[in-house]
Structure formats: C-alpha cells, structure tokens
C-alpha cells in the first residue's frame, strides 16, 4: 500500500536528514573528550585534557572575555532597536510591512565576506580605527532582522484589545506599553535577545575583517586551525556549541516557540 510505503519513506528521510544535520556536531563533541590527537577512530580513552589545555591558553581567556562582551553588547543593541522597529512595522499594513522587513533582511542575503570587506573599506576610508566597537554595528546590521522578525511575528498574534482596554481605563500609551504589552511579549523579547547573542557568539567573518587586532572565540578557532593539529580546538568548538545551543534552548523555552 502506498500509504505504508510513503510512511516508511518519510521516516527514513526524516531520520536520515536529522542524522546528517547532527553528525558533525556529535563527532566534534566526542573528539573533544577523546584521547587521540588526531580526530579519528578508534578513540583512545576519554579525557578532559583538551579542555585544560584550552583554559590554560591566555588567548582563550582573552577571546572569551571579548566574545562575552561583544555578544552582550550586540544583544543589548539589537533588541531595543529591533523591538522598536518591529512595533513600527506592526503598525503598518501587512502589505507595506512585508517589503520593509525584507529590505532590512538584505544584509542576510549577501555573502558575509562582501559585507565584511565593504565595512572594512568604509572604515578605512573614514580612517576609523578598528576594534570591538567596529565589529558591533556590523554584527547588529545582520542580526537585527532576526530580532525584528521574531518580535513582529509575535505582535501579529498580539491581542490589541488588551491595549485598548488599558487606554480606555486612562493609561497613557507609555504606561499601557509597560504594564500591558511588555509583560506579555517579554518571553519573546528574551528569546530574541538570546538568539541575538547566540548569533553574535557564532559569528566569524565580519568579526575577522573588522576587528583589526584582537580575538573572539570564533577567530581563535581560526587561529588554532591555521596553526595545525590542535585538539583543543575541538574543546573550544564544543564550548561554543554549548553556549549557542544552550542559549537557543533557553530562547525556545522562553518564547514557547512552536515554529
């Protein structure tokens, strides 16, 4: 029966795709605890050595500091900015909002290298020194569309009558916002913040070209990879993974995201 066959086909496909998506990450985590220097099987025992080696590197501490600072700053910037923009778009008719949001999402559609080099050229031309502060806006510009989309989508489901009631009862727009809107959408906002921070933590190309001299966790990965066989890079990657995935899981729970 085609029903059964198609069911089995779907199960195979689904499982296969999930395995495909997860395989590299699982291997990475596995090798970060593996006893071999070379990332291959058979594994020669389990160890925390690579983690201790990683933490011993002074570069790691510097990178961790910078990455933390940067992702918090990116979250703190992109969320208010994106939230306000989302409100603005929510106030527009659907027809108008669509293209506006699409335009804001343009930075996502470009190859990150082009964006990075364009920013670098612009900074050069204006003689602006590079540093974490020049990385920040470059990251925000491609992270803010995510924030806008998430909050905009939430606002689409938002029950305006609640606000109307508050206004009817005499609350000022600001008061209504703080006491009615904010509490209701706060899970979404928190979720968006966490996603923004995770995206920032993961970002490599724009950071690499606009930081001048300096390290973040992803650029440290690059540096370690360039040197050679350094298994502590697996430990580093696993840590980045835990950080970003952890943030995402929290975000999903906060927003009760269902898709």
């Amino acid at each position: 029966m085609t029903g059964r066959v198609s069911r089995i086909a779907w199960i195979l496909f689904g499982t296969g795709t999930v395995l495909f998506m997860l395989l590299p990450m699982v291997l990475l985590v596995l090798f970060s605890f593996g006893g071999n220097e070379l990332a291959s099987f058979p594994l020669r025992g389990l160890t925390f050595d690579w983690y201790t080696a990683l933490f011993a590197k002074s570069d790691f501490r510097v990178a961790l500091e910078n990455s933390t600072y940067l992702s918090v700053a990116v979250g703190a910037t992109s969320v208010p900015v994106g939230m306000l923009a989302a409100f603005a778009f929510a106030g527009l008719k659907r027809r108008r909002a669509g293209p506006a949001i699409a335009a804001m999402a343009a930075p996502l559609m470009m190859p990150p290298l082009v964006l990075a080099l364009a920013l670098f050229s612009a900074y050069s031309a204006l003689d602006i020194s590079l540093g974490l502060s020049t990385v920040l806006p470059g990251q925000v510009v491609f992270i803010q569309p995510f924030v806008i989309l998430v909050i905009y989508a939430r606002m689409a489901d938002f029950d305006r009558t609640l606000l109307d009631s508050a206004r009817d009862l005499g609350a000022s727009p600001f008061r209504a916002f703080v006491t009615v809107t904010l509490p209701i959408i706060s899970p979404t906002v928190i979720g968006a913040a966490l996603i923004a921070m995770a995206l920032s933590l993961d970002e490599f190309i724009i950071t690499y070209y606009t930081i001048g001299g300096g390290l973040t966790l992803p650029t440290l990965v690059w540096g370690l990879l360039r040197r050679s066989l350094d298994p502590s890079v697996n430990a580093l990657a696993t840590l980045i993974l835990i950080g970003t995935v952890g943030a995402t899981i929290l975000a999903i729970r906060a927003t009760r995201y269902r898709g």
Partner: protein
Amino acid sequence: MPQRPFVLVLFALPATLIFLLFFVGPFAYFAVMSFWSVSAYRLTPGFDLENYIDVFTEYAYPLGFTFAIALAIATVTTTLAFAFAYLARFRAGRWGPILLFVTLITMFGGYLVKIYAWRTILGSTGILNAGLLGLGLIDEPLPWLLYNPGAVVVTLVHFLLPFAVLPIYGSLRGIGDAQLAAARDLGAGPSRSLVDIVLPQCELGIVVAFMLTFFIAAGDYITPRLVGGPSTAMIGNFVESQFITALNAPQSSALAVAILAVCAGTIFVLRTGMRKALAVR
C-alpha cells in the same frame, strides 16, 4: 501600537539608521569602488570598466564555476529543506516540533568547526572511510570523498540546510490543515495538493530559502579552501585574495558585484519561471 506616522518613523529610526550607515552606505561605497582603479597601490577614483572586463575575461572560468556550484547547492538545499519542512509540518505529527528543534540547534555551533568536522569525516582516515574499510566494503580509503567540488557541496548543504528550513517552515505554518483536508475530501491526491495548494502559498518561504543559500554559497571562500582541493577555487577566493593580498579593492569589489548580479539575475529568472509554472493551474 504606534499609529501615528510620526511615531512609526521614530520607532523605526534606530534600526533604519544602523541599516543605512552600516550596510547601505558601506556597500554602496564598495560597489562604487569597483569602477575605480589602483595604480602603484594608490586608490584612484574614477570611472573605469577595466575591473569588470577582467572579471569576464580573466575570471570567467571561476565565475562560471562558482555560479554552477552555488546553483547546485541552492537547489539541493532548498529541495531538502522543503521536504524536511513539509515532513515536520504535515507528516510528522508530534515529532514535528522535535524535528524543528534539531534544525534550530544545528544552526549554531560555528561555521568554521563544521567545515573542519566535514574534513575529518570525509578524509582518508575519517569515519566514512574507516567505516567502509571496517565493513570490508573497500580495500583502500576512497580519496574522492574529500578535496573536490563534491566535498564543498556536502559541507555547504549541511551548513545552509537549517537556514533554509526555517523560512520554508514559516510559510508552511500559514497553510491551514483545513485546506488540505478539504482538498483531500474533494479527491485531490497528495501530489496535486502539493502543487496546487502548498507550493503557491509557501512561495515566499521557498524564494527566501533559495536566495539565502544561493548568495551565501556563491560568496563562500573558506569551504573551498579547506575541503575543495586544488581545483575548486570559487569567486570568493579571488574577492579575498584581490582585496587582501593584491591590495586591489576595486578588482575585489568588481568580482563581488559581478557574482551578486549574476545570482540576482538568476533568481529573478527562476522566480518568474516558478510563478508561470504555478499560475497555469
């Protein structure tokens, strides 16, 4: 929600400013630079098509190759993503959210480490070869798993898949189960429903997914460098080498603009084609 235009504009202002100052501005400058030239390492403004001529003469082969491989990657990824999103939305029942969850978490973990991981998986001593050897299916490691365009395709499809699934799923979410039920009641088979009901409504999601994967794949330079082997240089490699090694930003920019234009043109053509194909019904 702000209703008055003034407040609307005010709210949208910060994001728009950032967008203009840190995206539109720099990109416009970068694009304009493509008409400049470099003499004795000095950037000279002007209007000069030299860089573009070079793009279509000296870099014609990598440009064409990049376009082809990016198209392949985008097609495979979008198709896979659609199938997966469809599965998650309509067929997986209670497993749907889990599939989605997996997709979301694989979005992270770092771009570089994923390339590095695939290099490990596909290499001569990697797990694929080790597995095949162990099972006795081969006598010697297969060298053709790595350091060729195929490896680039696999790696990029893997990286881009979650980014493609999300917009498509977003579109699919908007299609009510009731619609499909109604269609079934009226006698439509699954493929008919797919083409007549599902596809037209998730056109946006599919286009977004395709654009995302196409553009990002076309501009990638790290993947080909690390897993592509000796003959898989893509335009991104030259955008980078012209900018950084040759210190020729105008040439670099011309290459970037060229690939973007080619991709945009293709998408336009494909989209018109898709519209036509779906509209005939």
